[in-house]
């Protein structure tokens, strides 16, 4: 996805404005000339200058550079779905892992993604199963990371 510089410029201008306004709510430090708002405000000022420059540059090149241009892959529905599955899959993990447990969630996550990458169902299942167990063993057994057991709690090993 390619976006005209002006779009970024305007986003940066709005963002830096929000940062500057919000930073005004930070308390001043007694007896010091510079408080916690100094750096955020300076950074936002810098970003707004860059935003201005990008807006001008994008505006001047608007004839040749479209406002927003989706790459060739965006035409390919399959790729868009796979791409979207990355954030959707990660967010789903965050939401359900505690309840379902790591092993079922990761199994599902891997199986769905492997199928999206056109791996044959039986092969995908075997790979998903092996990879889940290997990663689980490395992190739970050797690195002592408390991955959630969830539904499998009664049979935890």
């Amino acid at each position, binding site marked *: 996805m390619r976006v005209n510089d002006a779009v970024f410029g305007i986003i940066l201008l709005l963002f830096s404005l929000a940062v500057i306004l919000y930073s005004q709510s930070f308390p001043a430090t007694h007896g010091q000339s510079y408080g916690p708002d100094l750096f955020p405000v300076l950074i936002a000022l810098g970003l707004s200058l*860059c935003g201005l420059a990008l807006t001008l540059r994008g505006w001047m090149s608007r004839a040749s550079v479209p406002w927003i241009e989706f790459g060739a892959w965006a035409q390919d529905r399959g790729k868009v779905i796979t791409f979207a599955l*990355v954030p959707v899959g990660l967010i789903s993990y965050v939401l359900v892992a505690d309840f379902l447990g790591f092993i079922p969630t990761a199994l599902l996550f891997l199986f769905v993604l492997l199928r999206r990458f056109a791996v044959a169902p039986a092969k995908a299942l075997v790979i998903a199963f092996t*990879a889940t167990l290997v990663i689980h063993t490395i992190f739970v057994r050797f690195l002592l990371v408390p*991955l959630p057991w969830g539904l499998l709690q009664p049979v935890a090993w």
Partner: protein
Amino acid sequence: MGPVAAGGLVAMDILLTAFSLVFTPYVLLVMLGAAIFGLFVGSIPGLTATMATALLIPITFFMDPVPAIAAIVTTVAMAIFAGDIPGCLLRIPGTPASAAYADEAYAMTAKGQAEKALGTSLVCAVIGGLIGSLVLATTAPLLAEFAIQFSSFEYFWLACLGLSCAVMISSGSMIKGLVSLLLGLFISTIGIDITAGYPRFTFGNVELMGGISFIPAMIGMFAVSEVLRYIASNHEKLAVPQQSIGNVFRGLGPVLGRYKINLLRGGVIGTAIGILPGAGADIAAWVAYALSKKFSREPEKFGTGHVEGLVDSGCANNAGLNGAWVPAIVFGIPGDSITAIVIGVLYMKGMNPGPTVFLNQPELIYAVFVAFFVANLALLPLGFMAIKLARQVLRIPQPVLMPMILLFCLVGAFAINNTVFGITVMLVLGLLAYVMEENGFPIAPTILGIVLGTMLEDNFMSSMIKADGDLLGFFSRPIALVLGVVTLTVWFLPPVIRAVRAGRSGNGG
């Protein structure tokens, strides 16, 4: 001057302790594992050395400092060499650091000289790595002795210089590099601020109070964004060559003898570029290749499968890797994205980078140097094996790897604080890095901003408390004055020159 004697000579007992820290079965085994991992990741196009480092951190998180750092050093050295293998056999560089000469190496393969190209790459990588290690082990202690006099004023300027350097060297538009840097600096302001203890931009979220966790951020920006890019790209099945690879060391003697100046030049240029903040192995390889062509007696042969450029740039990228550690260890200012990750690891291990680590834990620092030499020497036999196994590795279908990498990222981001919040941070920064790279915003300045932001603000605030709010305090000490003047020149000279030039050409019509 404490345990670090004048002239950089190290007390014998420290060196012996350092050796005994590295030559334990555990550390050597960790290094072997890291080497295999690095060779594997480097050989596969689309997986970079930086990604390998980011994926390694959750594992090193649970190790002692020496094996942890040794694992990173080994992985990266192996990965950068292994990137040459697909570059040579398929014309697809395995990591960006091999891009500069992938065409040249492939042209040699087309002429039936694949063995010579791979052998040259391997031996030059080893020599470059050793030159870089030597420079690191000799200059870092000397610089540290000098840097021990630095106060918050000097560190403030050093951080400014490092960040400016990252913006100027970054490829593409300077405005976009600056935006990347400022975004990184902004990310570093999230959380409890150091001087007043006020939670900034946390919006009541308790998990944000400690700031954006560094490791999930790195995993997101370097690994998740790569997976996303892979999905969006046109991935075709790699056409793995059928012929087997013979003896790569045959006929290498004359090549190295003829181009010994190139070896040295590549190593020195690579190290120097590595030391500059923001420029790493990939830029080192491009510059070394260009210089090799410029000073060659036969520049017309470049691009037709001529080995000379390979010598320079194959040497330079491995040297650059090690050069980047000089500012990282001495000042805490990363020389490239990989050392930016390393600095995060060092802080977690309580081995805060800076000159004091040479005084307080010299045996650890020298153990790291020893690990550098061991890793680069081990590259010779292990790289040879990797070349032999290359055809098998390249046959591994990438679609199988991507979901597994993603799951590994997820668990890694979780494992640092054992909360799913890390996964959210990883996802957000992964998407941000993807959009930025797609639109020409370089990622390296953002990483440097995240790493150096706190240091910059910390040193500014403590300097201002010392100087009672007087900004001139930043010029009150001799070294600070010099650093300050250099920084301001770097900032203001280029625009002034440009304005003068524009004025002149404007007058001339």
